[in-house]
């Protein structure tokens, strides 16, 4: 068995569920891997651990690959488990009456997980799509968890980009919560990005992939199998597989959040090239550095290993 250290940027986020679930289902072991999951506060910390060599693979948002390509770092994703990004633009319960559309966010304070993070770029993209000048909106870092919930309930921010389980949590506490855009769903993702948009993926340094083909293939197998398993089971069954510390006290809430999130998980693990382009568009929108960099998108992902799995599956059939 080969030992692999997998860095996750905030494992509690449902967007990363397949990574943990694969471990619970024993998929990694089946594929001949001994995977240790290390949980980081955020995606960029996880990525840095991989860049520094203390972890092997990141389970995080694909956009980092594009982001770092602009800095001349070769990162490549090899299996994408989220086909929608899962961000929701939520209005603070105190502002439900006042803010009805994205346009109303002009001159307001909007929370993101952290300035400079994916949620920040996503917000700016949505704003400019809706014709609002992103610079007219005050961006506040509020994190993803309880801080974000506190900020929203307090009205310290007028709206925020949130992910699950925070969205469902807030929904549970505020029945008439207004969500301006919900990319956990196919509909909103399509309308915002015009296609699928890769969220969580496994990626790592390109040279590592080149030198660890076997392991990469094994991980891909594990994840793709897990994705299949997810779509073949109910949220309750999935929740039952997850360890307590990921589910928390409120199992019903977890199941509810999972139900909201399920459509977001990819069925194949493949990267949609249009999705990669969408990511580049989102980031070019507000980062001149990325806009001006000549990024070869095809180097930032590979479907080779996923295709290999599917081929084998086809063969079996």
């Amino acid at each position, binding site marked *: 068995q080969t030992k692999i*250290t997998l*860095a996750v940027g*905030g*494992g*509690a*986020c449902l967007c990363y569920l397949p990574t943990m679930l694969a471990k619970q289902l024993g998929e990694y072991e089946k594929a001949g891997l001994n995977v*240790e*999951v*290390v*949980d*980081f*506060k955020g995606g960029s*910390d*996880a990525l*840095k*651990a991989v*860049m*520094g*060599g*203390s*972890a092997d693979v990141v389970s995080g948002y694909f956009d980092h690959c594009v982001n770092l390509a602009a800095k001349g770092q070769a990162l490549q994703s090899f299996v994408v488990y989220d086909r929608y990004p899962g961000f929701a633009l939520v209005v603070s319960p105190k502002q439900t009456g006042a803010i009805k559309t994205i346009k109303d966010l002009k001159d307001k304070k909007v929370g993101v997980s952290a300035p400079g993070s994916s949620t920040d770029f996503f917000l700016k993209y949505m704003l400019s799509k809706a014709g609002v000048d992103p610079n007219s909106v005050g961006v506040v870092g509020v994190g993803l*968890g*309880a801080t974000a*919930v*506190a900020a929203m309930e307090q009205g310290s921010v007028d709206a925020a980009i949130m992910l699950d*389980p*925070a969205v469902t*949590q807030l929904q549970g*506490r505020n029945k008439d919560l207004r969500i301006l855009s919900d990319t956990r769903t196919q509909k909103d993702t399509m309308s915002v990005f015009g296609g699928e948009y890769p969220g969580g993926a496994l990626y790592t340094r390109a040279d590592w992939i080149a030198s660890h083909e076997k392991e990469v293939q094994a991980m891909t197998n594990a994840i793709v199998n897990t994705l299949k398993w997810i779509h073949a089971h109910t949220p309750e069954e999935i929740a039952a597989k997850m360890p307590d*510390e*990921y*589910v*928390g*006290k*409120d199992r019903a*809430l*977890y199941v509810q959040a999972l139900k909201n999130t399920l459509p977001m998980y990819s069925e194949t693990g493949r990267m949609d090239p249009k999705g990669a382009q969408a990511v580049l568009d989102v980031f070019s929108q507000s980062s001149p550095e990325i806009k001006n960099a000549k990024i070869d998108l095809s180097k930032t992902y590979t479907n080779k290993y996923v295709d290999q799995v599917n081929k084998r599956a086809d063969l079996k059939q």
Partner: protein
Amino acid sequence: MNRSTLLALQILVAVIGLALWHVLTTYPIFGRLLLPPFFFSNPVEVAQQVVKWFSTGVIWKHLWVTLVESVLAFVIGSIGGVFVGFWFARQPRTAAVFDPYVKMINALPRVVLAPIFTLWLGLGIWSKVALGVTLVFFIVFFNVYQGIKEVSPTVLANARMLGMNERQLMRHVYWPSALSWMFSSLHTSVGFAVVGAVVGEYLGAPAGLGYLIQQAEGVFDVAGVFAGMFVLAAFVIVIDTLVTVVERRLLIWRPLASESRP
């Protein structure tokens, strides 16, 4: 005040604190909960969580990791602080030259440095230890440095006239004289060592109390967060008690406040 009265009073304070917490998270006052349970949980749930951790035994592994990290951070940081403090105090020129840089480093937000520690020390306990050390070190350092400068000039002159060399001065004069300063800083830094370890785990780790807390926080399990903090706090009291025992032993020569004769 004898020991049992003291203990009784301490328990009383704890009971009052817990009762207040319970009441404020359960019964609305002036129409609203002063401590919304979503953010503050409540004592019963926290207690249940703690009991569960201990009865299932999951906690031990995490506690052990955090214990090792904290103790290492505390020991390394204090020893480092004592040494550098001594060195600076005895080399006033070096001290003057490096003084601004030491202060600059003390002002760096350790949280931002976490990735660098991970780079250098990997994901194991050492990167957490490093974070704790950067907190403990400065607290101990500044106190030891000052403590050595406070040595009574008469006693120092006497020691020098008795023919002590630098090393002997350290051992027989500066060290015992700076001890009470050092212990004062150790009481502060016990807490900070644990904070360093936990924050390190919180930022990225495969195990430890910080990890537990982060997991709990991620799923909005406030009871878990508070339970983690309680275990942590209990655990600091234990380490601190050890420090106090050593302190009593080493400072036996001082007049007790009660018997201090003029």
